[in-house]
Structure formats: structure tokens, C-alpha cells
């Protein structure tokens, strides 16, 4: 049995949701607003659990208390919106126990602002197909709390370097000169601790890792202790990968930066050649399980589907745009003939002026 949580308006009993602009709970029916902590909860046991058919696909079906419609979710969904009556529902079992997030960054960017950010994103993208912009139709806009593990850790980097101190001087000779160089070669080793604070790693396999990295940074000062009320009106996923399992991704991310930072400690030499480097995570605090706000905007163009993600806190956007190959070629040809034509005319004028100039000023 799964418990479904829906938040009710204390004034009219309507389903309320979190409003990103006011950072309060808002009733869409009577426009009442109240603090997140004041939201009254209506809980109901969903009688319909997992059917046999659902077990094969990993999907689960819930009954919406508002309209009685069936709400189908996958195993990692912890909050959703009823597709029939658009009532927000929170699935409590998905956010309890080990799956209860430590913290959450509430949405600050509204749906409209996210759409606007997308239109801004199109601006200046000259290879974007005209039809993509003109007939732009978003198939879906979804506010999702994406599960993240946030790491605070200390990495230890040990690097070996071959360094040189060089002095050189010139000795003049009849036909040229000698450059005489004296070098003192040193074997240098550095071991250093580098502290990293709040490295976020998304824990949902549904989201592309690189795209989610492009959405960073999140301002963790805006994080609040988890309260399920913030999820009302949005979708939310729970983590599929544990904090320990994602440690290797963290190490991959910090390795290059540790190498660079350690190299900066080598001073007093003219050259330094890195001969070895080893980075390990020497000390790591328990990762914080955090939900971060992301707007997902799905659109299709031709046979292709495009997904854009907007940081729900900062408005930063990421996503791959389609390229109009014909337009690209046409613009290349246009530039080629324009610049080539100008250059050819200037060249011919210079030549002719040079010719005439010779007669005038030989």
C-alpha cells in the first residue's frame, strides 16, 4: 500500500502547490497563499498497488484522490501531477527512509521564465532552422526535482616533476654566436590536500550527466531542509544510484583540477615537466542527498526529439539545438562570395592603382 500525499487549501479545500515566485504554497482556485510549514496534508492509502502486468515493466499505478484517475509512474518517481485533473500528488513511500532527501533547493524560476529562457537561448543561433523557431511548439514542460548527491571531500594528490633552473649567455663568434646554457636538474615531489565543497553529482540515470553538469552551479546557500510540500506541483525523482556508487564520477571530475592545482605549487624553476600524478580521495564526508530544481522542456522537430534543461534556481539553460545544414552551406557560400568578392576587387584596384601610380609617381 502506498500513501499518497496531497496538500489542501485551508480556505477552500482545493489542491495547492508550491509557487516559485512567492516561495509559498498557493491555491490556484482561491489564490490563497501560506507558508510551506502551514500546508495541511491530506493522506490516503491507495488501494491499488502493483499489478502483475506492472511488475514486468516496473511501472506502478496509483489512484488520484481528486478525480479517481489512474496515475502511472515508474519506480523512481516520488512526486507527479495527475494527467487528468492536474492535481499534484506526492508519493510518500518514495521519500521516506533511505530515500528521504536531506535538503532541497526550491524552484525559483517559474514555468514562464523557463520558456522565456528557452526563447532567449535561441537568439543569435544563426544555424538554427527558421521553422524550429517560428513553429516552436513545446511538447512538454515539466518541473522536476532531480536527485543529487552533494559531496564534501578532501583529495590528496601526489605529483612527481622534473624541474630545471637554467642560465644562458651568448658568446660572440666571427660567423655568428654560441648560446651557452647551463641547467641544474631537480627531482621534485609534491603531496597536497585539496578540499572540495559541495560537488553535485546527479543520481538519476534518466538525466544525461554532461547536460546536468552544464546546468551547474547551484547555489547551495539556497538549500532548505527537506519538506515534501515543496514537491507539490512538480515531479520528483528519487535516486537510483547511491552516494558511494557515484564516488568514481566525483574522482573523474576532480582529477584534472587536482593535477592543475598541484602544479601551481611548483615555484622557482624555469621549466617543470610532470612525470607522475596520483589523485585519491583521502577523506569524504557522508554525501548529502539533495533535490535540485530543473525545468525540462521537450520539443520535437522533424523526426528528432530535443530536450532542454533549465536550472530551476538560476535560469541557466543547456541542451543541444538542431542545425540547418542547408542554411549552414548557404551562409558559407554567401560569406565566401562576399568576402572573396571584396578581396578580389580590392586586389584588382590596388594592382591598377599601382599601375597608374607608376606613371604618375614612378
Amino acid at each position, binding site marked *: 500500500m502506498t500513501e499518497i500525499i496531497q496538500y489542501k487549501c485551508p480556505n477552500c479545500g482545493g489542491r495547492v502547490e508550491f509557487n516559485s515566485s512567492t516561495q509559498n504554497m498557493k491555491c490556484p482556485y482561491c489564490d490563497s497563499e501560506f507558508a510551506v510549514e502551514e500546508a495541511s496534508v491530506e493522506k490516503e492509502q491507495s488501494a491499488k498497488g502493483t499489478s502483475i502486468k506492472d511488475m514486468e515493466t516496473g511501472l506502478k499505478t496509483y489512484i488520484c484522490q481528486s478525480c479517481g484517475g489512474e496515475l502511472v509512474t515508474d519506480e523512481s518517481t516520488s512526486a507527479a501531477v495527475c494527467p487528468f485533473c492536474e492535481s499534484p500528488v506526492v508519493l510518500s513511500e518514495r521519500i521516506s527512509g533511505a530515500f528521504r532527501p536531506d535538503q532541497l533547493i526550491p524552484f525559483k524560476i517559474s514555468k514562464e521564465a523557463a520558456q522565456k529562457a528557452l526563447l532567449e537561448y535561441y537568439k543569435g543561433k544563426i544555424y538554427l532552422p527558421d521553422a524550429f523557431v517560428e513553429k516552436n511548439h513545446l511538447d512538454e514542460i515539466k518541473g522536476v526535482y532531480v536527485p543529487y548527491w552533494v559531496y564534501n571531500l578532501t583529495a590528496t594528490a601526489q605529483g612527481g616533476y622534473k624541474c630545471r633552473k637554467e642560465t644562458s649567455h651568448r658568446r660572440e663568434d666571427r660567423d655568428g654566436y*654560441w648560446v651557452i646554457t647551463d641547467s641544474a636538474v631537480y627531482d621534485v615531489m609534491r603531496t597536497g590536500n585539496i578540499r572540495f565543497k559541495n560537488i553535485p553529482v546527479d543520481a538519476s540515470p534518466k538525466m544525461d550527466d554532461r547536460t546536468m553538469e552544464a546546468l551547474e552551479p547551484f547555489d547551495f546557500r539556497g538549500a532548505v531542509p527537506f519538506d515534501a510540500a515543496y514537491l507539490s506541483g512538480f515531479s520528483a525523482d528519487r535516486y537510483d544510484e547511491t552516494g558511494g556508487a557515484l564516488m568514481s564520477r566525483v574522482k573523474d571530475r576532480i582529477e584534472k583540477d587536482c593535477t592543475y592545482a598541484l602544479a601551481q605549487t611548483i615555484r622557482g624553476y624555469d621549466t617543470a615537466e610532470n612525470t607522475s600524478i596520483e589523485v585519491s580521495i583521502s577523506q569524504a564526508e557522508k554525501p548529502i542527498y539533495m533535490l535540485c530544481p530543473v525545468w525540462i522542456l521537450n520539443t520535437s522537430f522533424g523526426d528528432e526529439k530535443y530536450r532542454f534543461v533549465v536550472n530551476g534556481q538560476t535560469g541557466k539553460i543547456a541542451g*543541444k539545438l538542431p542545425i540547418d545544414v542547408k542554411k549552414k552551406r548557404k551562409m558559407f557560400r554567401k560569406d565566401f562570395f562576399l568576402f572573396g568578392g571584396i578581396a578580389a576587387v580590392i586586389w584588382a584596384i590596388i594592382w591598377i592603382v599601382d599601375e597608374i601610380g607608376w606613371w604618375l609617381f614612378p
Partner: protein
Amino acid sequence: MKKGTKLISVTLGLILIFSVALLPSISVFADGWRDYRDRDEVPSERISPYLIDEANALSSIDDMMIEMAVTADSDEYNYDIVVVIVEGLGDYTAQELADDCYKYSGFAENGILFLLSMENREWAISVAGEAVNAFPETYQKHMYRAMKEDLENDDWTSAFSFGGFTFWCGTAIRAYEENGTAYSVWRDSMDREYIVKVIITAVLCGAMVGAVFALIKKLLRERNMPGAEVGVSARQYMDGRVELVDQYDRFVRNEHSEHFVSREK
């Protein structure tokens, strides 16, 4: 004996009289054009060769080749074609010196003289008679342009003899005699071959510049198009500097190297 003495005396007297009588003409022939200029006297016949190298700039081979060329062309065209190389211009301009040289050397009515000063590489062309029409100023500049590179390289034979100055003189005189008008430098410069050359080089230049600029613009536009996201650095999450916990700097060896750089390079 008396008769013999008288004969000798008469003979010596005659020699003396002839010598006195011939003296002015001998001295006239020995004078250079500058002497005539000083006296402002135009000689009745040519007193200078077609090649005057007062600066001793020419080698004996150059001298021979140029002399041969200017003499042959002067004889062929009935125009005196003269080359003069002087050390400096003194108080004169190159044009004044060239005009004076032609006038006081007793050259023919029709002719052309090219004068070059070694001191500052100034040049002038003096034309006389029909050569004024056959060698208009544009043509003179055209001639100098054709010779300029050889003159700068002290390649005197190429500059003045066949293919150089004498060639351009021959071309102009022949054209003038055939058409009664000066040789058209425009026709020479703007012939089909020349125009084709200009067009081809302009097109090639345009194609290169066009391709480079179009490629740069393409790359800039592509950079503006977000594609597959690349990994983002974690440097922004670094909290403070590196805290060194262990380090050493061990001296290994000294190295010495010497590298020669040639002055020619």
C-alpha cells in the same frame, strides 16, 4: 750645304705654320661636352661617344656590351641613343645635366639620352627633335619602370643594352615611324595577357580570402551552437588552496649545452 739647310728650314717652317694652324682644331676635339657648355658653344659634330661613363661604374664587359648596343641602334634608327652615367649632379638637376649633355655633345637632331647619377640614383631623360613626340613623358616613365630593377641591382647590361633601354628606344622609334604617333603604354600595360593576369590573381586572392573569412565565420557560428555538452571543471568547488603535506626538491645533475647560431640565419 746652304741649299740643304734652306730646305730644312723651309720644311720646319711649314711644319710650324701647319702646327699653329691646326692647333685650335686639335684642342677643340679634345674638349669634352662640359668644356663646350662652359663656353656655351654647341659643337658642329658629335664629340662624345654614345656611352659616357664618368662615374666608372661599368665593368669592361658592361662597357663593351652597352656601347655596342647603343651604337648599333643609333646607326639603325638615325636617332642618337645615349647613356650617360655621372658620379654626381653638382649644382644641376638631373634634367638640366641630361639636356646640357645632349646639347653640348653635338648629338644628332633626333635623339634620346638617359642620364643616371650614381650619387643619389637620380635619373633623367633628355629628348631632342622628333624624339620629343616619339618619347612622351608617360613612355619615359614606363621605360624607367622596366629598367628600375636592373638599375637597383647594378645589372647595367640588362638595364641599358638589348632588352633594356635600347629595346624600349627601338620599340618607340619604330612605332612612331610606322604610325606617326607615340607607342601606347596603355596598350602595352593593358593588353589581354595583362588583364587576364590581373583577373586570375584577383580571383585567386578573393578565393583564398573568401575561404578563410567564411571558415572563421562558420567556426564562430558553430561555437555559438550548443552541441554535445563537454565535461565541466570542478575547480569552482575547490575550497581554498592546496595544503602541502609533503615535498622535496632533490638536485640530480648539472647539464651544459652549447648551440651555435649562424649570423646568416
